[in-house]
């Protein structure tokens, strides 16, 4: 089992390394570099050569990559071309803010998703299921910016209950973000909850139709006991993976919501970094986001391993 864990960890490291390569290569392949971005129309001739020498851009690609990667591991990403601040400082606040948003969304959405997913499956095809499934489908299909816009209209424009825009600055302490953060959290968790709910529901239905649940019924196991001991443990296992995938998706989907609500998070920073051609910043953000994704997936993988006895034995036999 230890071998399995180590294997997974190594795989995670390899993935992150691959991602860093892709990011670096991707940025390299795009026409232009930090110097052309800064100098813009003056980017030619001796000025360009000097600029490149100064920023170390004349060294061969693999050397630059190694330098960058080594720095990244230490948390040192260099300096943002546009604002002259150290990237790590710039990014630190934003990461905190985006994490706040994500965690609040998870805390609100996960319990709801599981609860209603389970209920919808138990009352399959009845009124509750149809309503819940219908709501989930709507939440999934309507674009976030649409639902965000509509919620702002209703709760901020018409009812005036909640602020429709975030004015708190990026480096403010966490507590200051309430109540501005409520609407963004609602929108974010809507989509997330819908996905997880549908997966939980279909997993439950599959388990409810299985041979061993039928056997438990024929063994005389009472309904509640059967759901708790025989159904839920088996149905919720696959949900772990979907939760991970959805969390990972959050990292991308959060951009739109941060833009709509003007929330000072990592997503908005990424968009402005790209628009401004602040390549060093873009690379840093990409690496951070991708690493979080890998870590989340890894955690889900390991959790599944621990929770599923079949995997543990199968691996032990191979080890």
């Amino acid at each position, binding site marked *: 089992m230890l071998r399995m864990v180590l294997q997974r960890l190594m795989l995670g490291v*390899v993935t992150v390394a*691959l*991602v860093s390569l*892709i990011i670096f290569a991707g940025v390299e392949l795009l026409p232009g570099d930090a110097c052309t971005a800064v100098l813009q129309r003056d980017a030619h001739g001796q000025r360009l050569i000097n600029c490149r020498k100064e920023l170390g851009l004349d060294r061969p690609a693999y050397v630059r990559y190694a330098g960058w990667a080594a720095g990244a591991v230490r948390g040192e990403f260099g300096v943002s071309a546009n604002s002259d601040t150290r990237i790590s400082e710039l990014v630190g606040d934003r990461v905190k803010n985006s994490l706040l948003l994500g965690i609040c969304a998870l805390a609100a959405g996960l319990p709801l998703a599981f609860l209603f997913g389970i209920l919808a499956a138990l009352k399959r095809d009845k009124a509750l299921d149809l309503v819940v499934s219908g709501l989930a489908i709507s939440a999934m299909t309507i674009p976030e910016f649409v639902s965000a*816009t509509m919620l702002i209209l209703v709760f901020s*424009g018409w009812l005036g209950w909640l602020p429709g825009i975030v004015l708190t600055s990026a480096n403010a302490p966490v507590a200051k973000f309430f109540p501005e953060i409520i609407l963004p959290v609602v929108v974010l968790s809507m989509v997330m909850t819908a996905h997880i709910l549908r997966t939980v529901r279909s997993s439950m239905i599959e388990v409810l139709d299985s041979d061993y649940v039928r056997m438990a019924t024929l063994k005389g196991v009472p309904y509640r006991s059967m759901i708790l001991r025989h159904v839920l443990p088996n149905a919720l296992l696959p949900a772990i993976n979907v939760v991970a995938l959805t969390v990972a998706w959050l990292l*991308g989907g959060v951009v739109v919501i941060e833009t709509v609500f003007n929330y000072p998070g990592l997503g908005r920073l990424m*968009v402005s970094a790209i628009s401004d*051609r602040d390549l060093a910043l873009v690379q840093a953000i*990409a690496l951070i986001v991708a690493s979080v994704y890998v870590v989340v997936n890894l955690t889900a993988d390991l959790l599944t391993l621990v929770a599923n006895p079949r995997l543990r034995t199968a691996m032990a036999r191979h080890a």
Partner: protein
Amino acid sequence: MTTTILTPATVATKPGALQRLAQLLRDMASRPSGAVGLFLVLLHLLVAILSPWLVPYDYKTISATLILAPPDALHWFGTDQLGRDVFTRTLLGGREAILVTLVATPIAVTWGGLLGIYLGLVGGRIDNVVMRIVDAFLALPWILKMLLLIVTFGTGIEVLIPTLATFYGIPVIRIARAAAHNVVARDFVLASRARGHGKFTIISRELLPNVLDALMVEGAMRWSWMLLAFSSLSFLGFGVAPPNPDWGLMIADARTFLAIAPWAGLYPIVALSSLIIGINLTADALAKALGVDRAQKAPI
């Protein structure tokens, strides 16, 4: 083991392709949700094609006097913040989105599907390496990838179509590979191998016909994710450039005035949402009609 017990009345022959398509559509429309979905999609397609001849005004014409005018007999959907007719812009707003996504989706599904099936068949080291790269790619948020290319190369159709087709084809690899795995394990593929058929024959004759259903359903879903992405990009200002009409763009513009002039945002919202819901309902009905198990994944 199930035994299909036949009586002479049920003896049927394999129907032709057109007949099967007709039967499929009939199955899909037999359920209310499927019928609604098909109707919405077809309606949008028709409007997208015919709208240039249906619209009363030019989408570009601005008017200083009629800013944010409420709907009336002259302007059925009112006007926006530059005095342009919302009805016209709404009808035309889906054209580029639908064109781009409708072209990019089949490309994405084709290349992703073929690669996925190939990987599912060969396995081994190639499979391992490619899947690691795919995983690494999927670790990056979609918007980052899209924005990098758009900001560098522009927002024209010639950029958007290949970009969307590439990035949205990658998750299809995973799905096609998983579907292929299920089929490769079966004896008839082994039988084909035993006859000495090469990989190409096995893929085209044995695997593809059996994986096609799953790919079609996935294709429908891909289309809806792509539309979402396209609209989001336009909303953020990275998609269709003004003054061209686009729903995402319109919604972004209307955001600031939403409280006082909701029509400017509401109509494009309804248009976009109805198309996406329609596609989803159609995909669902398609899945049920084909008997495909639709795995809900997070949109990539």
